[in-house]
């Protein structure tokens, strides 16, 4: 088993606040990890540190074999990040947006169409401005843009929020597929019940540190 995320005593500061205060965690290839914890526990920050968007100020952090203290940029091309924001150009049409995202990650336009179909965004919506989509539909387009890049590490922040029941099941299915094909998935979610969660492991953060860990399944 190779570790995809390996944190030792990581401290990260953002906006003058210690968002991670000595976090230890190791995540191995193929795991589906659910992050839990109350608001401000550090879930979002953990995902952003993994993505190299927040610098670490203390400790050791390795993501996909890259030392984040030396290089926060290189791992990014293998990572898909779904943040609180959808990262959408709301003026563009769905398909135009997807084409741009596909081209920006070096994928083909055909991949973009396939990703949209996979998320149940039908052709009918392709030439509609994103502005006019509902919150759930936007989230689907956002997940589709992430799918196009075929990331090895999936980082999702509250991916189930805004999705309807059908959308959630679809997302779970996609995440399971990704994990079974060798990708690693980390998602933050406090509303998902443990009994229905697809996670192979549940990690609880508190105050920017690890509080509970169900361990590798």
């Amino acid at each position: 088993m190779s570790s995809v995320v390996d944190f030792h005593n990581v401290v990260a500061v953002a906006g003058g606040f210690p968002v991670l205060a000595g976090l230890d965690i190791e995540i191995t290839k193929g795991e589906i990890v659910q992050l839990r914890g109350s608001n401000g526990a550090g879930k979002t920050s953990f995902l952003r540190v993994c993505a190299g968007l927040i610098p670490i100020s203390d400790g050791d952090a390795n993501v996909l074999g890259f030392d984040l203290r030396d290089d926060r940029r290189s791992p990014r091309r293998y990572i898909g990040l779904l943040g609180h924001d959808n990262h959408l150009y709301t003026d563009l049409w769905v398909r135009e947006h997807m084409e741009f995202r596909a081209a920006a990650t070096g994928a083909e336009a055909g991949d973009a169409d396939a990703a949209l179909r996979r998320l149940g965004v039908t052709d009918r919506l392709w030439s509609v401005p994103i502005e006019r989509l509902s919150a759930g539909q936007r989230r689907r387009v956002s997940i589709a843009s992430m799918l196009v890049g075929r990331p090895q590490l999936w980082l999702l922040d509250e991916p189930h929020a805004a999705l309807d029941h059908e959308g959630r099941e679809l997302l779970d299915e996609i995440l399971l597929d990704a994990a079974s094909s060798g990708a690693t998935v980390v998602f933050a979610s406090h509303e998902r019940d443990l009994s229905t969660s697809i996670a192979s492991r549940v990690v609880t953060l508190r105050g920017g540190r690890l509080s509970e860990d169900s361990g590798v399944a």
Partner: protein
Amino acid sequence: MSEVTTVATGWGLSFVVVATYALWVVGRGKTIGRELGIGGREKLEPESDSSKPADS
């Protein structure tokens, strides 16, 4: 304005500007120093620089 008054105004204004700035700097230093208290004084040892987080 006569030459003498102009010169006086120029020198006076310049002096006031620089002195106000100097007083502001010293005053601000004292205010923050007081906030930091004794702890602040200890932290001012030269070594304290190396304990700062090594941001990239």
